């Protein structure tokens, strides 16, 4: 598939206290929802913060929405096109919702106050259904604070959304709403709007994910369109007696006393020929876990 890129990264590095983010080349396609998946400490937040202009301690070249910046340069020119939500609340706790609305309007020329209020209602930020502008940020739950940040971001006219763990504090219903919102945002852009988000909730976010990037230890270990990844990897299931023979060709294996299942590269399927195995199309969650396990430093219990 030939696609334009929303973001292109070349030779990106950032080091700090034993951690090194090192991305020789990465492309994030325009017009799609891209999920950034990885263990804690894999470098997801660092990467998103660099792209959003929140961190400048990087080396390398970044092209974002047609603008180039490199080696710690601020991405001031594209900030008007980017919406960002962080992993934690970035409003002061004693600010009221009215203040958040006013301050966001001051910081962004494209902020639409009516749309903000409408999104606040759509996201059910106020339990009684009335816009309670006097409510303080500290009186909101973690999930509602995230909804408020999302409302502030979505009430702007942007071309790229960068979201760090937006689903984590949200309940399942709200996660589905978030997926719908992301899909609606992309659809409204006719191929020009893109979303880049990190998530640990791969299953919940799978239906909206077009492209996935898996990171481990500061490096990209897998990237591709979800449909391509599902062709590249195959879920293999078999009886217990086949496990030892199949294990060398599997990315990750989970087994019990009856049988096993694991993720195998499609190109290695020939090596498993002749074994009494069944195959299935894996989910993004299964692929992600397999790839992460293969690269993880976590001591996994053998199952």
């Amino acid at each position, binding site marked *: 598939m030939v696609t334009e890129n929303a973001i292109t990264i070349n030779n990106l590095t950032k080091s*700090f*206290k034993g951690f090194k983010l090192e991305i020789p080349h990465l492309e994030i396609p325009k017009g799609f929802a891209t999920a950034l998946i990885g263990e804690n400490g894999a470098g997801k937040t660092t990467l998103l913060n660099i792209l*959003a*202009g*929140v*961190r*400048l*301690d990087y080396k390398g070249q970044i092209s974002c929405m047609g603008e180039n910046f490199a*080696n*710690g340069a601020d991405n*001031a*020119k594209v*900030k*008007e096109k*980017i919406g*960002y939500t*962080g992993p*934690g*609340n*970035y*409003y*002061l*706790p*004693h*600010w*009221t919702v009215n*203040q958040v609305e*006013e*301050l966001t309007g*001051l*910081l*962004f020329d494209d902020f639409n106050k009516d749309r903000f209020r409408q999104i606040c209602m759509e996201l059910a930020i106020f339990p009684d259904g009335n816009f309670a502008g*006097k409510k303080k940020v500290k009186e909101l739950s973690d999930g509602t604070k995230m909804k408020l940040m999302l409302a502030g971001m979505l009430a702007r006219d942007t071309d790229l959304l960068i979201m760090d763990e937006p689903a984590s504090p949200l309940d399942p219903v709200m996660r589905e709403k978030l997926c719908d919102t992301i899909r609606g945002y992309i659809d409204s852009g006719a191929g020009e709007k893109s979303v880049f988000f990190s998530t640990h909730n791969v299953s919940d976010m799978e239906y909206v994910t077009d492209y996935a990037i898996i990171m481990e230890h500061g490096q990209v270990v897998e990237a591709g369109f979800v449909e391509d990844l599902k062709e590249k990897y195959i879920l293999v299931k078999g009886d217990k007696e086949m496990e030892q023979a199949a294990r060398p060709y599997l990315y990750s294996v989970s087994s019990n006393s009856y049988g096993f299942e694991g993720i195998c590269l499609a190109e290695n399927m020939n090596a498993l020929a002749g074994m009494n195995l069944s195959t299935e199309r894996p989910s993004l969650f299964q692929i992600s876990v397999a790839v992460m396990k293969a690269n993880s430093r976590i001591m996994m219990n053998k199952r």
Partner: protein
Amino acid sequence: MSKIKSYFAHLSTASKVVTILIPALMLVFEIEGLLVFEFDMLAFMMAVILLADILTDYFCFGGIYSKDGKVQNFYKISPKGKDVYMNVFLVHGIKRILLYFGFPLISTSLVFLLGKQEISLALNGMTMAGYLLGTIGTAFGGYAYSLIGSLISRKWDMVMVSFAIAVWGTSFMMIFNLIKMWSPIHVKVIILGVLIVISVAGTLFAMWYNRKKLEDSYYDEKSFKRNQSGV
């Protein structure tokens, strides 16, 4: 005008009311004190203003300098966020100067306009020069304490810390007033000199520190910025 608008957007309704109401109320009390009780209450009034100022500062900027705070990100993601952030503190600084120097100026002017300067001089048992030096000292004392107190209190998002600093501030103003009242004129001059140095240095430090907090939040390593700029 946009700078003032940005500043007021950072104030809660209560903070806006307190910011305007308390100095006005204190002025009324000052006039009442002079006319009804024949008593110059400037030091008490300044203590109350200091208390209100540090507490309202918490409700505007409390926790903005905290170590794990992410509020700077809100400004950093905006193309004009840095300017708004710096302008807000600039206006806040000007407001502080107007409050701590304007109030004593108006109050002392009223003392003279109402012909009550003899009350102040008799109460304080001092010469006119000593009285004026003491008044200027009160202004600088309140200003310096407010500057340093709010810088410290903003490091925590804890109202009790701000409250404690505010209460210490009122005690400071009262003790300072006693010292100021009973000091000979050359001691007053020395105290005023020290307070002027603290106020000027404190103002420069506050401006530097505010910018530094924003700039540093872009980097894990302070050396990175220097390396990037080739220093």
